[in-house]
């Protein structure tokens, strides 16, 4: 029997990553480790390797546009049906993992959890985990927009197959990732080996867990996977290094970070941000914010996926806590000046 309270929502982890990056290896690792948990796994119909698990559902990755063609309201209709069906077996599993094809855009998967009432009532999106190939990601970022989307969208990135590249190449690909998404938790892995609590139970979409949105530029941790067979063919490409890490500017995908110590006017901020995602939502992949409003003793937090925003008061500002408002947008060709000026005009 299910001992969890009825109101407890089933967490859903979305696994993305370009073809061959190591998604299925990670998935099999999650399923085979002795954690005592049961997972329902939704795999794409073109899955490469067999998955050894009791509850495996093949999905067709059928997307459609809600509200008669709104591109930002693209939803995975198959997930709506599958989650409906899976919930008939609630109590038989603790969490759901959705593996997408290498070419999939993570947005429709994420949006499904906000756009369908039934799915949102019974499950919650935990995190988007992207597996990236340390050797080939650099090339894919050039020729495959899907790969860039997956990096930009991620909450957790496994930079996998680190044993196949030199430390110089590794630093380079990390810098490329950070140019697109400085906020995701980045892990270096070999054969997708990682502690499972780094990829599961992340609560990345939980407003209560939006504690800190500082970038992680220099904090990529290499976990438990040290390079045992060290490659001594170091590159000697030391141009533009700052503290050992190169800084890149990605030509089409960037993040914009805004902050102010002055309180914001909610009557200006909400119309502005709603108009912003209505007009630029197609290009804004993810957004997050911690806000301080005038005459308001509580922190307001929000997060968003394209046009969908989810926000609420989180808690009282603590004594002595700096009441700084911070917002982050990750997106494609974002009009930075316009966004910056708009944000500044929301200051009370």
């Amino acid at each position, binding site marked *: 029997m299910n001992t969890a309270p009825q109101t407890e929502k089933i967490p859903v982890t979305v696994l993305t990553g370009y073809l061959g990056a190591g998604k299925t290896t990670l998935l099999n690792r999650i399923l085979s480790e002795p954690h005592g948990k049961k997972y329902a796994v939704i795999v794409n119909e073109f899955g490469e390797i067999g998955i050894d698990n009791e509850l495996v*559902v*093949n999905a*067709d990755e*059928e997307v*459609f*546009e*809600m*509200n*008669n*063609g709104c591109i930002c309201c693209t*939803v995975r*209709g*198959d997930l*709506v*049906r599958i989650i409906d*069906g*899976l919930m*008939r*077996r609630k109590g038989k599993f603790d969490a759901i993992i959705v593996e997408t094809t290498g070419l999939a855009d993570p947005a429709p998967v994420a949006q499904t959890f906000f756009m*369908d*009432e*039934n799915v949102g009532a019974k499950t919650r999106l935990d995190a988007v985990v992207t597996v990236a190939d340390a050797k080939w990601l650099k090339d894919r970022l050039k020729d495959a927009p899907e790969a860039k989307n997956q990096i930009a969208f991620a909450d957790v990135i496994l930079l996998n197959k680190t044993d196949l590249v030199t430390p110089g190449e590794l630093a380079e690909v990390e810098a490329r990732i950070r140019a697109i998404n400085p906020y995701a938790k980045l892990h270096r892995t070999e054969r997708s080996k990682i502690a499972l609590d780094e990829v599961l139970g992340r609560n990345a979409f939980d407003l209560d867990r939006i504690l800190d949105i500082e970038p992680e530029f220099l904090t990529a941790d290499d976990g438990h996977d040290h390079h045992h067979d060290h490659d001594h063919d170091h590159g000697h490409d030391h141009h533009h290094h700052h503290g050992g890490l190169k800084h890149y500017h990605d030509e089409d995908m960037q993040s914009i970070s805004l902050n102010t110590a002055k309180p914001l006017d909610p009557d200006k901020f909400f119309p502005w941000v709603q108009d912003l995602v209505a007009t630029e939502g197609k290009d804004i992949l993810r957004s997050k914010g911690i806000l301080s409003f005038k005459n308001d003793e509580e922190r307001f937090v929000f997060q968003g996926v394209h046009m969908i925003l989810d926000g609420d008061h989180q808690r009282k500002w603590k004594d002595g806590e700096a009441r700084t408002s911070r917002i982050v947008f990750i997106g494609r060709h974002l009009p930075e000046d316009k966004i910056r000026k708009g944000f500044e005009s929301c200051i009370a």
Partner: protein
Amino acid sequence: MTETGTPLPSLADRARSVAAEGTIVGVHFFQQTPVFVLCEEALLFAPPEDKRLVAIHGGAILASAADGSRIVTGGDDGKLIATRRDGTHEVLATDDKKRWVDQVAIGPDGAVAWAAGKVAHVRTGKGEQRDLDLPSTVAGLCFFPKGFRLAIAHYNGATLWFPNAAGAKPDVLEWKGSHLGVTVSPDGKFLVTTMQEQTLHGWRIVDAKHMRMSGYSARVRSLSWTYDGGALATSGSEQLILWPFTGKDGPMGKQPTLLAQSPARCSVVACHPRQPVAAAGFADGSVLLVRLDDGALILAREADGEPVSALGWSAEGQVLAMGTENGSAGVLKL
């Protein structure tokens, strides 16, 4: 419960209660015997004298249909199973890729239709099978009231299929979006789908003229035609909503009738088979009998916070069976 000052007349304490393990996802009848479809594995036969659990599927039961002589179910075990009145059952089909059988329908002369993934299947009473590939997953399936024809809901519209017209290209009614359920009016003139959005879409079949039926507070999950086919009763709002389907234009340009105003959302509807009465189940656990002529209400189940998930009438309409998400069921003999 309705928000009126005086308490409603109630038959709730006359209902026989039946406890089931797990969510009830459907209910059918063999004569006066209600049979509850459970969310996993089994059917629960609930005659007055005792109850009997008949395990049929190796997993979740995703869809069911009945014609009085058998209950046909589809499961996540990839099986299509027919269960008879005595509880014996047979596997009618097994999906070759073990995909979920999540749509079933029963047609004329013993025909049965089902779907798994993007393929709709139909088997005649004589055992001849035909298959139809659809452009996307089959999300709704029903037989036309007359003739051997199927309506199939999917992305961007519905397909109308004559399985016996070999080689003929099925008609397609188009409307952008995800269509999740389908029904055809008893006179065969209108086709209505439930959509992912909080709306119904309809077509007048003769000329494919569109009808949008909107204003719901939630996705519509339950549809039922009134006894004379004159209206379509629907869930999805804080009242029972009935769309008029009389005349050649159906609901075009007309307003729906709103009855049984409730503080909770209507989750299931089932029209009485012989009289202008509908049963409406709500998310707070209440079930109301609604007289369609004047909107008079009788309480058939008290609100207890357990969302109503299944309602069904016996063929003559003397017995109403009610099931909830938490597995408590009731049988009310009128």
